[in-house]
């Protein structure tokens, strides 16, 4: 796993055959989360001011948010019941009148997601073994911290040790970023129609916000 630039995660051949173009990109940042600086909170406020109700209404038929909605439909999720990351951020903006600051990491992810529309998430890099990728779960596999086994064929983000998180869902216990985290793995799932450049920009934005604190 390289520490520098953007890395390409793997996609299992059976998943790639059914969802061609699906990709996973990631980068590792040498810091964990923490309290947001005043500058980062200000940046979040400015982003809230730039984001209007009209943009929120038109969001779902813009190319990148639309691509995630379509991917959700293709994998059996309903984006109106479980909003895509950018729609979840925008709903929060509308409900609370602004993007709420929580931590450096959450704020960095919100900025990157809202600016680009790309779904980006984070894991503790030191608790991910090898390169992450996307695959279907095997019979008998479970997501740590959740009761019972995963239904066989559940799409997960996995590493060499097993499932790290559901694709667009819960993170396995012990893989999330917490107070002990010193290195963060930023990870973006790219549907076929989302440009590579948008994903690179999203990870770069999150990384830059995270490093600036």
């Amino acid at each position: 796993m390289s520490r520098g630039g953007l890395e390409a995660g793997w996609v299992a051949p059976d998943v790639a055959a059914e969802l061609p173009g699906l990709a996973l990109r990631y980068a590792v940042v040498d810091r964990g989360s923490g309290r947001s600086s005043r500058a980062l909170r200000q940046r979040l406020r400015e982003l809230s001011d730039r984001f209007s109700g009209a943009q929120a209404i038109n969001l779902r038929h813009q190319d990148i948010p639309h691509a995630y909605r379509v991917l959700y439909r293709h994998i059996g999720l309903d984006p109106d019941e479980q909003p895509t990351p950018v729609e979840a951020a925008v709903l929060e903006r509308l409900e609370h009148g602004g993007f709420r600051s929580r931590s450096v990491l959450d704020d960095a992810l919100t900025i990157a997601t809202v600016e680009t529309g790309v779904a980006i998430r984070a894991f503790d890099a030191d608790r991910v073994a090898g390169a992450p990728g996307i695959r279907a779960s095997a019979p008998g596999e479970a997501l740590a911290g959740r009761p019972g086994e995963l239904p066989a064929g559940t799409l997960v983000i996995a590493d060499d040790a097993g499932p790290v998180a559901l694709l667009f869902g819960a993170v396995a216990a012990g893989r999330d970023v917490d107070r002990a985290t010193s290195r963060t793995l930023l990870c973006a799932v790219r549907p076929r129609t989302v440009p590579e450049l948008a994903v690179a920009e999203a990870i770069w934005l999150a990384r830059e916000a995270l490093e600036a604190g």
Partner: protein
Amino acid sequence: MPEVLEQIRPAPGAAPGHARADRVRAGEASRRAARDDLRAQIADLERRLAELFAAAFPRGGIDWRVGAAGGPRILGTGDLERVRDALAYRLRAAEVELGHRVEVERANRELLAEMVAAPERHRWIRISNSDIGEPGCRHWHSRPRWGILGMLLDWWRVKLSSGCPLPGCVELAEA
């Protein structure tokens, strides 16, 4: 015709297992093509539903939910068909509902124009922005000028409200 049959028949030296494997591969390729086609249809329906959602704003009360097929997982042909059908049904239902609302709003706009021209013939009628499909909280109200005196003398006018209450006023009213 004999030449065609000759081509379909396996070559004399070919193992029967190979022919079976070819048929299985061809069947799987055909099923995958069907799934790809369904995914393309789902993408198209999702875009049309999203466009309708934007066009419907600010009208509320339209159901946009389609329901989940249970995921995240690779959906089979049957599940993809169910998602496609549910999207098509939702799109059609939303189009019908929106069409009905647009008709009602057009009638309300005509009524509003008549009310503004002759308030005395539309006494006490109140039309809001939502009745004519516009955002905001304004409303037009046909009322007598100077209260009871206007009622007695048949002096009517249309009053236009000033718009949405300020957030502070709402909080005060709720408290």
